[in-house]
C-alpha cells in the first residue's frame, strides 16, 4: 500500500518532502516563541529592562514571520503534493484499465472501477494532505513541546510524560473500539441507503401493491437499528473529550502546586511556569490531532487498498511476442475448444467445440439464454482466451496475431453496446479515424441507419448524449452496426444486435451484407429464427455445446431443439415492437 503511494509521486516527490519540512519549521517557531515570551516577563518586566523587552519582541516578530512563511509554504506544497498524488493515481489506474482484458473488467465490474477512480482517489488525496501537514505537525509539536518543557525543568516535565503515556493508551483503546463500531455502523448505513435506492426505483411496485405502510415500517425499523448502532459508536467516542480535559486539568493543577513550591524554593521562575502551562496545552492539542489523523488514515486505507488492487491486477491477455500483422481471410476454426470464465475448475461454459467456418460464409447462431453463444464468439477476437484447444482465424491461431490487427479485422458488435457522447460522425469514426463522410454514409446505408439520420435536423452532426440516450434502441443498434462495418472487417460478428430493429429492416440489413460485403465472414447471434433462417449455415447451441450445425432445412428435419424454437415462433414475427424492450 505504501508502495502504491511511493510509485505514484512522480514529479511530486520534492513537494512531498518539503511539506513536512516546512511544517516542522513552523512548529519550531511556534515552540521558540513562548521562550522569548518568558524572557520578556522574567528578564524584561521583572528587571525593568525595556531594551530587553524590545529586543525580545523584535526577535519574536521575526520568528512569527518565519513561521508564517513556513506555514504558507507547507500549505502550498501540501496542496500540490496531494493534488499531484491524486492526479498520478488516477492516471496510473486509467492506463492500467486500458490494458485490462474483458475478464479483468468483469472481475472489478465497471461500477467498481468508477468508484475507485473517483471517490477512492478523493479519499486518498484528502488523507495524504492531512498526513503530510497535520501528520508531521502533531507529533513534532508534541516532541518539541516535550523537549522544551524538559529543558525548562526536567522534574516537573515528568508529569507531562506520565499524562501523555496514560492518554495515548486510553485514546488508542477508545479509537480501536470506535473504529470497529463505526465500520459496522457504516456497513448498516450503506444497507439502509441501498434499501432507499430500491424503493426509489421500485416505487411503482410499492404503489401498485399499496405497500407504502409496509415499506415505512421496514424502514423505520432499520433506522431504529442504525440509531442504536450510531449511539453505541458515539458513546464510545465521546468518553475521549472528558478524559482528555480531565488529564489536562490535573496536569495544570499538579504543575501549579509543584511549580509554586519550586518557585518559592528558587528552582523555577514565574515566566517559566507560565511557559510550562502553555506547553501543556500544546501537548494535549497534538494528542487530539493525532487521534483524528489515526481515524482518517484507517478510513482512507480501505480506499488505498482498493486502488492498489487495480494497479496490481495483471492483464491476462498479452500480445504475442512475434505478432502477425495481417489476417489472410475470414476463415474461422475452433479446434477442441473448451472455455470457462473461472480458472478454478468450475464447469466450463464451452465444451470441446470443433467448428470450421469458411471465409465469406454467413453463419447464424441460436440457442437458449446461458447456452454460451456470446462466449463462443468472444473467443474469435480474443476478448477472452480459450482454456483448452485453439481458435484459428485466417489460418493462424488468434494468440499469434497482433491484438490490434486481430480486433480490427474481426469486428464485433457487442450485445451490450454503447455509443459515446459526441456527434454521430464522431461515433462512427471509432471504426476508422480517417473515414470520409462518404464512407460513413455508405456504411450507414448498409446498416439502414441513413434513413433516420437523414431525418434528424443536424443529420450526421447530431449530438449523441451519453450512452446514446437520445436515440431509440433500434437506432442505437443500427449505429453500432455501422460503426463496426467501418473497420472493413474480414469477420463481422453481430451479437443479438438487431433485437430492437423491426423484422423488415432486419431483413434489409442482412440483404445489404450479402450484396456488399460478400467476402466478409458474418456471424449472427439472434433470438428470432427469422434473423438467421436464410444464413448459409446455422449453429444450434445448448448448454455450452454445439448440438447442430447445418442449413435451415437440415436442422428443421434433424434437430429437435431447432425445430422447437422454430415452431414456437412461426407465423410472422414473434415480436410486436419496432423498438423492442426499450421502454
Amino acid at each position, binding site marked *: 500500500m505504501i508502495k502504491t503511494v511511493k510509485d505514484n509521486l512522480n514529479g511530486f516527490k520534492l513537494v512531498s518532502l518539503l511539506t513536512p519540512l516546512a511544517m516542522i519549521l513552523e512548529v519550531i517557531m511556534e515552540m521558540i516563541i513562548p521562550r522569548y515570551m518568558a524572557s520578556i516577563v522574567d528578564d524584561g518586566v521583572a528587571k525593568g529592562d525595556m531594551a530587553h523587552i524590545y529586543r525580545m519582541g523584535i526577535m519574536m516578530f521575526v520568528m512569527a514571520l518565519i513561521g508564517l512563511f513556513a506555514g504558507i509554504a507547507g500549505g502550498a506544497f501540501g496542496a500540490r503534493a496531494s493534488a499531484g498524488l491524486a492526479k498520478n493515481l488516477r492516471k496510473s489506474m486509467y492506463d492500467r484499465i486500458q490494458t485490462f482484458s474483458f475478464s479483468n473488467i468483469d472481475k472489478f465490474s465497471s461500477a467498481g472501477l468508477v468508484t475507485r477512480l473517483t471517490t477512492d482517489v478523493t479519499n486518498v488525496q484528502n488523507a495524504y494532505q492531512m498526513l503530510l501537514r497535520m501528520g508531521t505537525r502533531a507529533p513534532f509539536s508534541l516532541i518539541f513541546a516535550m523537549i522544551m518543557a524538559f529543558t525548562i525543568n526536567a522534574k516537573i516535565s515528568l508529569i507531562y510524560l506520565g499524562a501523555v503515556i496514560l492518554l495515548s493508551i486510553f485514546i488508542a483503546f477508545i479509537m480501536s473500539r470506535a473504529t470497529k463500531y463505526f465500520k459496522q455502523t457504516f456497513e448498516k448505513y450503506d444497507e439502509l441507503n441501498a434499501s432507499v435506492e430500491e424503493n426509489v426505483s421500485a416505487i411503482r411496485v410499492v404503489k401498485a401493491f*399499496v405497500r407504502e405502510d409496509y415499506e415505512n415500517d421496514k424502514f423505520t425499523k432499520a433506522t431504529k437499528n442504525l440509531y442504536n448502532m450510531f449511539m453505541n459508536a458515539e458513546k464510545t467516542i465521546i468518553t475521549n473529550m472528558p478524559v482528555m480535559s480531565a488529564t489536562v486539568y490535573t496536569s495544570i493543577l499538579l504543575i501549579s502546586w509543584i511549580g509554586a513550591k519550586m518557585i518559592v524554593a528558587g528552582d523555577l521562575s514565574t515566566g517559566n511556569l507560565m511557559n510550562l502551562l502553555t506547553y501543556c496545552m500544546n501537548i494535549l492539542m497534538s494528542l487530539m490531532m493525532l487521534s483524528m489523523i489515526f481515524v482518517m488514515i484507517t478510513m482512507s486505507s480501505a480506499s488505498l487498498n482498493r486502488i492498489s488492487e487495480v494497479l496490481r491486477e495483471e492483464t491476462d491477455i498479452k500480445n504475442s511476442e512475434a505478432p502477425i500483422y495481417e489476417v489472410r481471410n475470414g476463415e474461422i476454426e475452433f479446434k477442441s475448444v473448451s472455455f470457462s470464465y473461472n480458472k478454478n475448475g468450475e464447469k466450463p461454459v464451452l465444451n470441446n467445440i470443433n467448428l470450421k467456418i469458411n471465409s465469406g460464409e454467413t453463419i447464424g447462431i441460436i440457442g437458449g*439464454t446461458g447456452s454460451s453463444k456470446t462466449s463462443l464468439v468472444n473467443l474469435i477476437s480474443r476478448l477472452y482466451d480459450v482454456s483448452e484447444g485453439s481458435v484459428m482465424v485466417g489460418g493462424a491461431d488468434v494468440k499469434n496475431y497482433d491484438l490490434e490487427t486481430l480486433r480490427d479485422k474481426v469486428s464485433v458488435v457487442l450485445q451490450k453496446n454503447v455509443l459515446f457522447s459526441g456527434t454521430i460522425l464522431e461515433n462512427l469514426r471509432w471504426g476508422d479515424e480517417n473515414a470520409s463522410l462518404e464512407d460513413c454514409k455508405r456504411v450507414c446505408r448498409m446498416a439502414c441507419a441513413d434513413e433516420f439520420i437523414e431525418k434528424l435536423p443536424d443529420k450526421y452532426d447530431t449530438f449523441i448524449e451519453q450512452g446514446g440516450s437520445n436515440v431509440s434502441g433500434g437506432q442505437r443498434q443500427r449505429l453500432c452496426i455501422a460503426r463496426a462495418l467501418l473497420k472493413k472487417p474480414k469477420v463481422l460478428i453481430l451479437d443479438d444486435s438487431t433485437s430492437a430493429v423491426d423484422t423488415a429492416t432486419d431483413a434489409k440489413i442482412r440483404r445489404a451484407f450479402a450484396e456488399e460485403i460478400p467476402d466478409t465472414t458474418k456471424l449472427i447471434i439472434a433470438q428470432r429464427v427469422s434473423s438467421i433462417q436464410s444464413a448459409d449455415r446455422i449453429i444450434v447451441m445448448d448448454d455450452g455445446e454445439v448440438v447442430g450445425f447445418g442449413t435451415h432445412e437440415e436442422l428443421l428435419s434433424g434437430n429437435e431443439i431447432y425445430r422447437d424454437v422454430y415452431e414456437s415462433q412461426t407465423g410472422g414475427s414473434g415480436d410486436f415492437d419496432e423498438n423492442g424492450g426499450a421502454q
Partner: protein
Amino acid sequence: MAETKVKEVKMGGPGGRMRGPRPKLENPGKLIKRLFGYIFKYYAPHMAVVVVCIVVGVLASVQGTLFTKTLIDSYIAPLLLADNPDFAPLGRAIIRVAAFYGIGVLSTWIYSRIMIEVTQGTMKRIRDDMFTHMESLPIKYFDTHAHGDIMSMYTNDIDTLRQMISQSMPQMFNSLITIISVLVSMVALSIPLTGLTLFVVFIMLFTTKKVAGQSGKFFLSQQKDLGSLNGYIEEMIKGQKVVKVFNHEEKSVEKFDELNQNLYNSAYNANQFANIVGPINAQLGNVSYVLCAMLGGILVLKNIGGFTVGGLASFLTFNKSFNMPINQISMQFNSIVMALAGADRIFKLLDEEPELDEGYVTLVNAKEVDGRLTESSERTGKWAWKHYHKATDTTDYVELKGDVEFNDVDFGYNDEKIVLHNIKMFATPGQKIAFVGSTGAGKTTITNLINRFYDIQDGKIRYDGINVNKIKKADLRRSLGMVLQDTHLFTGTVMENIRFGRLDATDEEVIKAAKLANADGFIKRLQEGYNTVLTGDGANLSQGQRQLLAIARAAIADPPVLILDEATSSIDTRTERIVQEGMDRLMKGRTTFVIAHRLSTVKNSDCIMVLENGRIIERGTHDDLIAEKGKYYSLYTGNAIA
C-alpha cells in the same frame, strides 16, 4: 441485461467529501428557524440542558485560566516574601479550582452525551419523515427527479446535516460563549490590551475573507473539473469493452490526461488557498500575543492602572484562547452553509405535495344475505365497493367484478402536451384486452391511468360503474394486479418477495402461488429454496426467473383485474414458454390488460387495441384486424417500415 452491481463500501467520515464552494441560500434565517424547530420539537428539554452545560463548561474553563493570575499574584508572590511559607492556602485554592474543573469536565461530558442523542434522534426522525413522505409522493415526482439526486439527499445531505448538528452547532455556541466570557475577562484585566487584541482580530477576519474569496473561486472550478472528469471516467469505463473492441485505448487516454491535468490545476489552487488561511491566522495570533506581551510589559513596568505580572500572564492566556474560537467560527461557517443547503433540499422534499386521495368508496369483504350484498368482517373471497351517497345518506354495495370503462379520456404529463387522445374502451369481467403499438405510442401510459398513477385531463374512467376518482386509491390499487416488464425485487428472501403481494399469506399459500406462476421449479433449485436471500434487485436471478417471481407476487394478491407488461426479447424461447404458461394461468378468469409483444398473447385476446401517437387507430379481434389490412396487418406480416 442489467450489469451486476458490486457494492462498494462507502466511506463515511471527513474523508469522503471535498470541501465545496459556498452555495447561495435564499433565506438562511428561515431555514435555520425551521431546522431548529425540528430539533426543539422533540428535544427542547435536552437542548436546555445542553445550553446550561456548555455555559457551565466554558465558565469553568475561564475560571481555570483566571487561576493562573491568582496563582502568581495571590499565592506565589506572597509565598516568595514569606519567611516561613505556608502552602496550605494554596492547597485549598487548588482543590477549589479542581472542583471547578471537575464541574467543567462533567458538564462537557453530559452535553456531548445528550448531543449525540439529539443528533442521532433528529437524524432518525428526518430519515423516517423523508422516507415516509417520499412513499406518499405521486409517481410524477419520481419521473421528474433524477434518482441520483433523491439518493444524494439520503446520503450527502443527511451527512452534512449530521455534522452540523453534532459538531458545528455546539462548537459555534461554545465559541460564542467563550468569546463573550473571555472578552469580559480581558476587559476586566486591561482595556488597552483588549483593544489591541480586537484590532488584530479585525485584521484576521479581513484577511480570512480575502483569501477565502480567492479559494472559493478555485473551489468552484475544482468542482466543475471534478464533475467533467468523473463524467468522462464513468462514460468511458462503462463502455470499456467497446473501447477494447475498437482498439480505442490511446484515444481514450488522451482526453483523460487533459481533464486530469485540469482537475489537478484547480484542485491544487483551491486547496493551496484554503491551506494558508490557517497559518496566516496562527501567526497573526502570535503577533497579537507578542504585541500584547510588549505593551503589557510596558504597562507593568510603568505600573499603569495597577497592572500586575500575574494579570499579564492571565491576559496572554486569554489572548490565545480568544483567537482560537474566532478561527473556529470562521472555519465552521463554510460547513454550516453547506449543511443548510442540504437542509434546504431535504425540506423541499418534505414540502412536496403528497399524492392526493379524495376517494371515499372503499373495498370491503362482502357476503350475500337474502340476495343482497352486505359487509362482512372476515375474509369471504368476495369483495364489494362500499359506496356512500351523501345526497341520500345511503350506502350501496357494488360487487367487485373487474369491469373497466374508458370514456373519451385525454391525458398528458402536463397540460400543455397531451399524449393520449380520446381513448374509449370497454372491458367486461374476464376479458383480455391487448395493447399493441410501437414504443412511445402510449401503451404503458394507458395502464398507468387505470390504477391512477397519473390523473387524466379529461373524460372518465369507470371501474364497476364507479368513477375511479371516487375510489380510495389504496383500495383501487389493491384490486388491480400488476406485473411490470422490468421486474423490481426487494432485498429479502424469495418467500418475502412473493408475500409482498399479500402480507398475511401463509407459507403454503406462497408456494401455491409460486406453483401457479411456474416459479416453484426454479425456486426449489436455489441454494436455500424459498429462503434464498435476494440482494441488489435480485441480481443473482435471470431475467426470466425475476419475471416468474413477479407473476407469483401478483398471483398471491389474487386481484380481479390484471395489468401485464410482457417482457420482450430478453429471454430465450424456452424460458419464455414457461413464463407464458404462468401468465396464462394467472390471467384465467380475470379482466386483463396486457401490453403485448408476443403473437400468442395477441392472437387469443378478446380485443386488440392498436395504438399510434396516443390514439387508438384500430381495434378488434385478431381476425377482424387481419381482414382490415391496416397497421396491425403490416405489423403482423412483418412488412412495417420503421
